[in-house]
């Protein structure tokens, strides 16, 4: 006698396990897991082979299979809710050092104000949070000369429109770029050093801090 369970269903009760990973929520529910055995033929297809296997052996094999099937789904039976939370990620970098010098180049006779510029710096950012802005401040409390910074060649990929403005650096943080939320981008920084003839000569060393914040 051949045992041929042509169609078999094993209902598996859901219990629900929740796993929290990191913005979007990914959930998959498996309330019931149906295991179907279609064309499950424990007996051999071959009549010849079928005849060779005793009934007792066939029954034993079926019991073992049934036991195996009843155990295996235990590991997959719970419905699972997977929640993936992307934590707020913010990245900010700036090229390290800049040397500005007012040495007569670009100085105009008869004009008291002397300026020099540098635009070799690049500021890059990336954030999945919103709303966000980038501020700038200097650590030099007593400046002899004025220093301004202007974002130029601003490129941004993201949900919002980035706006920017020129800032004269002080120790207080000031907004440099606005609307950088949920975006990545970069800009070049145009620094302008301004000295008056009446200020004489000297050296200012700034430690400039850029902060991306909400």
């Amino acid at each position, binding site marked *: 006698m051949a045992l041929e369970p042509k169609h078999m269903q094993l209902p598996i009760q859901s219990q629900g396990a929740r796993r929290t990973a990191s913005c979007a929520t990914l959930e998959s529910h498996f309330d019931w897991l149906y295991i179907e055995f279609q064309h499950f033929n424990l007996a051999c297809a071959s009549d010849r082979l079928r005849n060779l296997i005793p009934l007792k052996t066939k029954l034993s094999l079926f019991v073992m299979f049934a036991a195996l099937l009843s155990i295996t789904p235990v590991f997959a039976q719970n419905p699972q809710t997977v929640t993936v939370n992307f934590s707020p990620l913010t990245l900010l970098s700036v090229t390290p*050092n*800049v040397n*500005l010098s*007012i040495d007569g180049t670009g*100085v105009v*006779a008869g004009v008291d104000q002397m300026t020099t510029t540098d635009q070799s710096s690049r500021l890059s950012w990336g954030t999945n949070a919103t709303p966000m802005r980038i501020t700038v401040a200097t650590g030099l409390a007593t400046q002899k000369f004025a220093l301004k910074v202007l974002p130029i060649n601003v490129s941004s990929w993201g949900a919002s429109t980035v706006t920017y403005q020129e800032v004269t650096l002080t120790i207080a943080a000031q907004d440099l770029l606005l609307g950088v939320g949920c975006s990545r981008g970069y800009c070049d920084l145009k620094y302008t050093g301004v000295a008056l003839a009446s200020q004489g000569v000297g050296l200012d060393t700034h430690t*400039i801090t*850029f902060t991306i914040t*909400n």
Partner: protein
Amino acid sequence: MNRRYKSIAKAILAVMTLMVLTLTNACAQQAIATQVLTLQVVEANKIDISLKAVTLVIDQASLESGSPVEAVNEDGVLVWVTNGDSKKITVVSNNPSPRFQVKLQAVNVSGSAGVAAPEAVLNDNTTKDLISGISRSSGRCKIRMTASAKVANGVGTETYAITYTVTGG
């Protein structure tokens, strides 16, 4: 009573947890990048003259003195700037032995930008003072040029290349 304390304790715990989570979240949203920038200002001096070429023509004579009348020009404006201290402006001609005589003087020196020196005679190619007492300032003045000749000098044309310099006082 105990139940009330437990409820209060639970509420406090919940609030504290919320605060910690909020703070952690806020910190995660902030990133900082720093950059060192040096701004150095060294001594810078600039000077310029508006009238690059001047022609002085002596074509009249005084019957009273019997000498040719001087030719004068005040159209040139000299401008300068310096962030150094104790500077002066000098003038020099490239003509070591001129046939005619050319004199220069700074007039109407602006503000406290400097003090005009007496009229400089370009009778050789040595450097003469034009303005002194210049420190950390920008300024301007007119350049008064006077050309004169004696009857004995005859007629002719001379060209002078005149150089103005801001230099240490």
